[in-house]
């Protein structure tokens, strides 16, 4: 009897010990997901972030803006419609700028590299670059409460976002200057080159100050100062990374493979380059298959018929690294800022120095509005496929585009459904402003025309 009781007790005890083992609930496959990692190293997260940032900078939104700039044109299916401003809240959304590969991961990276100042500064500069784009396109955006613990982030005013990004870049510059081991080869843009990152951060600051200049002209001087420390040669350009390997191809190249001829060269842009006899025309474009060797652009929304040009072999290649922040932009900001701060001669010199670097003859004797127009035109041509051209247009009404539909070119995108449906802080599409805070309705071209309409 006694033995039986003890046997029963010991059986239960043994079972209890089995269950009490700590590793019953812990370890690979149990508390750790065997299918996907629950943690990422800094380098893994940075690589993943960059891969999707390259898309965010040169993917769908960039394609749309390039069409609205009339550098490109929609020539098929929904792209022909987008080109004529038929865009709903379902079409272009900013989800990818915040979710995996976006803000959530660059912030995640920052928490991991706090002790490596160079790496930290690189990550902060990346955040400023990508969130600037979101703020330029959508205006007021969730930022101060984004990618954090707030379930329904509020909208921050576009000005506040820009000021926050400028402050972030100041921190980034402090960190970049302090230095550290840095990301090294994992940095697909500069390979961890500290000096290039410092220059890029300055050029980016200059860009941001230019965005603010319509509200406060004192920002021109600030932008000018930044360009002094900005990207000083084409070797310092900030370009995306692409290669011929599957999964690493240039996004314009992938678009052409997947959607054929839905986008072609824009007529306005091609004609402008022809009128300038710009040697970059063949560097940018190649003739359409039925065009008899002539580079022809399409007016907005024209159906593709085999004659419209597409990107050149170089520019359309899978390996092509898309320019994002360049020496050209730095110099054209510099020229405009000099002009705006009443240093017209210096502005012309800066313009001509740049023209010489791309094989164009110097302009002489330009002053006043004609000089500004020449600078803006130069920037429009140099920053081919760059979203910044649209920001400039909204500020200056240069170049003098004819809207593809209606009386004005859209000045912002409506918020996407992925945000609006879940976030009561986002107004319904009809309640959203037609233009952004930094491009106020009073913005006018130098000739006095109101190029963006009068919507508020």
């Amino acid at each position, binding site marked *: 009897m006694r033995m039986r*009781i003890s046997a029963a007790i010991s059986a239960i005890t043994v079972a209890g010990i089995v269950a009490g083992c700590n590793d019953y*609930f812990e370890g690979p496959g149990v508390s750790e997901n*065997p*299918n996907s990692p629950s943690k990422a190293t800094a380098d893994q997260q940075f*690589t993943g972030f960059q*891969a999707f940032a390259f898309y965010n900078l040169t*993917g769908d939104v960039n394609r749309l803006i390039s069409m609205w700039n009339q550098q490109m044109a929609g020539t098929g299916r929904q792209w022909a419609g987008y080109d004529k401003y038929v865009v709903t809240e379902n079409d272009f959304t900013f*989800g990818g700028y915040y979710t995996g590969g976006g803000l959530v991961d660059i912030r995640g990276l920052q928490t991991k590299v706090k002790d490596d100042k160079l790496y930290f500064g690189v990550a902060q500069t990346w955040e400023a670059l990508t969130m600037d784009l979101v703020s330029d396109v959508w205006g007021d955006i969730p930022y101060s409460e984004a990618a954090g613990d707030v379930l329904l982030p509020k909208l921050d005013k576009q000005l506040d976002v820009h000021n926050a990004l400028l402050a972030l870049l100041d921190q980034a510059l402090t960190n970049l200057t302090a230095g550290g081991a840095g990301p090294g080869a994992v940095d697909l843009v500069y390979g961890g080159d500290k000096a290039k990152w410092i220059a890029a951060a300055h050029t980016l600051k200059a860009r941001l100050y230019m965005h603010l200049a319509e509200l406060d002209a004192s920002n021109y001087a600030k932008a000018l100062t930044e360009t002094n420390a900005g990207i000083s040669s084409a070797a310092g350009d900030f370009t995306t990374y692409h290669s011929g390997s*599957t999964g690493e191809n240039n996004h314009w190249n992938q678009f052409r493979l997947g959607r054929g001829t839905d986008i072609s060269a824009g007529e306005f842009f091609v004609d402008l380059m022809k009128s300038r006899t710009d040697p970059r025309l063949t560097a940018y474009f190649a003739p359409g298959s039925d065009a008899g060797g002539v580079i022809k652009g399409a007016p907005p929304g024209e159906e593709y018929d085999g004659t419209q040009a597409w990107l050149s072999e170089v520019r359309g290649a899978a390996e092509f690294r898309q320019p994002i922040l360049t020496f050209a932009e730095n110099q054209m900001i510099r020229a405009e800022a000099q002009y705006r701060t009443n240093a017209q001669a210096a502005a012309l010199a800066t313009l001509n120095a740049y023209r010489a670097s791309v094989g164009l003859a110097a302009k002489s004797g330009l002053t006043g509005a004609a000089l500004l127009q020449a600078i803006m035109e130069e920037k429009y041509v140099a920053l081919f496929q760059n979203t910044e051209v649209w920001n400039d247009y909204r500020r200056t009404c240069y170049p003098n585009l004819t809207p593809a539909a209606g009386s004005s070119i859209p000045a912002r995108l409506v918020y*996407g459904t992925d945000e609006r449906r879940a976030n009561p802080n986002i107004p319904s599409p009809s309640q959203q402003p037609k233009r952004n805070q930094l491009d106020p309705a009073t913005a006018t071209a130098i000739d006095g025309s109101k190029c963006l309409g009068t919507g508020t």
Partner: protein
Amino acid sequence: MRSSWRLLGILAVSLGSGLARPESAHAQQSAVSVSGRVTNEAGAPLSLASVYIETLGLGTQTAEDGRYQLTIPAARVHGQQVVLGVRAIGFRNTTATISLTETTVSKDFTLAANPLRLGEVVITGSGTSTTVEKLGNSINSVKAAEIQKSSEPNIVNTLAAKAPGVEVTSASGDPGAGSSIIIRGIKTIQGDAQPLFVVDGQPIDNTTTSTNPNDFSASTAATNRAADINPNDIESIEILKGAAASAIYGARAAQGVILITTKSGRAGQTRYSLRSNSTWDDVNKSIPLQRSYGRGEVGSAAKAACAGPGCTPTSSTWGPAVASGTPTYDHWGEAFNTGHTFDNVLSVSGGDDRRTFFISAGNTSQNGTIIGDHDKYNRTTGRLKATQLIGNKLRVGGNVTYSDVRSDYVQKGNNLNGLLLGLARTPPDFNNFPYVVDGLHRSYRYPNPANSTDDRIYDNPFWVINEDRNTSTVGRAIGNFNIDWDALSWLNVKYTLGADHASDERIEGLPPQSAGYDGGTIWQGTYNALQLDHNLVGTAQHKWSDAFATTFTLGQNLNSRNQRIVQANGTTFIDPELFTLNNTVSTNLQPQNYASTVRIAGYFAQLGVDAWDRLYLTAAVRADQSSTFPKEDRTNYYPKASLAWNAIGGSRPPMGPVSYLKLRTAYGAVGREPNAYQILDTFLGGAIPIDYGTGSTSPTQGGNGGLYSSSVKGAPRLKPERTAEAEVGIDFGLFNQKVDGSVTYYDANTSDVIFSLPVPVSTGYQNVTSNGGKITNKGIEVVLNWRALDIQNLQWEIGGNWAQNRNRLVELQGADYVGITGGFGVSTAVKGEPLGTFYGTDWIRCRYDVADADNHTTNAAGADVDVNALCRSTNAADHSLYVDADGFPLIDNANRVIGNPNPQWIGGLRNTFTLFKKFQISSLVDVKKGGQNWNGTRLALQRFGTSSYTNPRADCSAGLDKCVGNEKVFGQTIEKSPGVVGPGANKSVPIGENWWRAGLGNNFNGPTGQGVENAGYVKLREISIAYTLDNARVRSMTGLASVDIRLGARNIYTWSDYKGVDPETNLEGSLGIGRGQDYFNNPQTRSLTFTIGLNR
């Protein structure tokens, strides 16, 4: 050792001579053979009744003819008197005292019915059991005889209409198709709504997985894994319905528990049984197709003209009437024929006072109703269950079963490669034969095949039937080792250690030239599931006084489940006929793998108190720890309590007509554990397609491995879903139990329901796994049985069950609606509505429950119309149809609630007649009142013009705006509505191609809501006529104890208004909670079964 030899000896003798007779020993004390026959009051034999001598620890079981034979070893015979008892489910225990003075004793028993099963032991799970009168919650039992009568290869289907509140829906009539079983309503949103299956104390896997990941709407039928069990091996099934009943299974029991007990051997003569079933199936209802009009558009065949090879003519059947003499084809009839199932099971069982054994071998071989050889289900099972008594207190047992299941399937559903999508769209004047011409696939969209690379758009149905390869090969082993030890006079210890392992090898292959895959494609994969379970239970009993006894149970359960899936998709075959991954162009190979491990440690304690032989209290708590719970909240508690008061009956005398009355109430809590790893953040490393391209973007760049955050945020504090349920009920017997019944009311509140909450993307995530859902289920269950007639040579019993469940999604954490698993874009979880509600577009109607501002439309003149204001001004009924000036309704593009698949009530009615004590005739009627289906099949075929609902049709040959004839009035003779409003109300309009194809009369242009139909039905579910041959002549001629013959039929007839196939259809099968979606799913069948059983 000696015993073993004797067992073998009995086996040998039995096999050799036909009737095993114990040999009379010549010793002074001889062995005593006790034999006899057990019948019911009507004189019909009772099989599977236990006959036992408690004091000697001896027992046996009656055969099919009711006969038993029990041998008392000589050593234990000393001329004493012993009590011989008989126990049978549904009958009163009966005893008789016999004297062991002769070598043979004959004793027959006639058992009185015990419809309330008072005194019978009922298994309550995790090694616990009680007697029926002590139950404070409702548990339904289904016995072997009822399972056999249904002749269903899938165990889940055998439960249809057998118990109140248990809703069984089989996905289709495909061999191996899965079945869903929902008990007392759905209690989850994005989880699995199927109950936990437990076989002989061992929880088993009942998941349903599709070869094509995440796509249950296409692909093939998928089997729920419980179908691997051979229903012939089952002795009884207990359905634990409410939370109080299933709380002992804690975090796995939210949807109830199905406890299956397999057959066991009994001491006594070795029994042999061979049962053979032969079943013929055919499709019970077809998709209604018209055969009067041919291919074309705008009433003209010329519009379909298509000369050269490679041309793909119109998809439409809107041509002229088929000229007399032009052949038309019965596309449906050509594709189906009579299916056949052959089911054999051989079992041998027996034992003696120290050991028992049960051995069975079974094979079910089914060739379904689709012509050809590719819809098959072949299940071979073997089972061995044995026990051995060691000493006098310790019984050890082993139980192992192996199932080999091989299936061939035919693609179905929303699928260009599915059988019915192409078949039902084929114009009646197109001959689908030949389906291959000169080695090229010919289809109605591609009638003159020119090459192997052009898209066939829809596969020819005979291509689907004959050329595709969809196979599953399952090896499944379930077994356990168990101990039952009466450690002390008051303490019993039970232990079970079990394993369930399944390996499923899948191939889903489409050969080159299949629609959408001109080079062919193959999914090949292996699905492995392993479940280990350890269950240790100690039960202590003490009788404090005559009036007061307690039972205390303490248990521990450790459960571990592993799942591993490895599969790959390859496209473009090298050799067109070889269905392997190696045979595909390897750059296209896309491998996937998935693994998970979930571990639970549960501890439970239960106290039962019996007072004054009439008041029974049970209280228990289970504490569950799971690897799917966050570390900080590792333990969750699931309490329960129940009280049963036997007011009348037992020792209490009847009160008037009331011969028995029990009042009961119970409360319990159960859970549903989160899925594995939902509490963790996830980083992904796979490439994703962007840029619309053939390419993709990979987070890995330039040789650096990259990762990015999943769009779903991990939920580190995720809790299990929790259901708290209260129930009250009465069980009663009237007129000395001539009538019995029970009524139960329950109210279940499920909180912390897990779902993926859409969040603003600016949070960095698209979804957060949330605990924010709340669901309520309230219902009533009624059972009523009446032994209506009991006269010489005729007995008639009638029994019914009825249940009503009201399901509602009460809270969704601010979201209006979220997707559900298996929703097919039609079924969703809408706040305030029942789960699975159909949600989509509808006609513009009066909607008084919608704000006026949200119910506007634009009329033909382009002016804004305030619909509700218009409706009020004409006093129109709610949901009156708005008809525009042209006489046609308008689409309301807002998504709204458009239907509800949940039935108003379900019920079953069984009639059983016993004639001349030999014939048993029974029928089962299954009723589903209300509950809607979304008939997308009809809507699509209205567009294509093949649906019989497009015949008659207006003549539109003069142009779509000049149709004449077939005039209808919207809201009255078409799209019938409670009323009509609008400028075109009561206007008569021609209905033809202008409406069905070019207008809104289909699901491509028109509202989803027009496909919602009442899918209620009355089904003659089963008819069975059984006869037992056991007279002496048969016995001596055949050497058999008895021969049973049974003729059965299943799904014989369905009464329903549903305009399509059998309303019992479920495109998404047993996955998830979406129900009632009808979109080219393979059809249901009816069947006729002939069974012969040989027993000895």
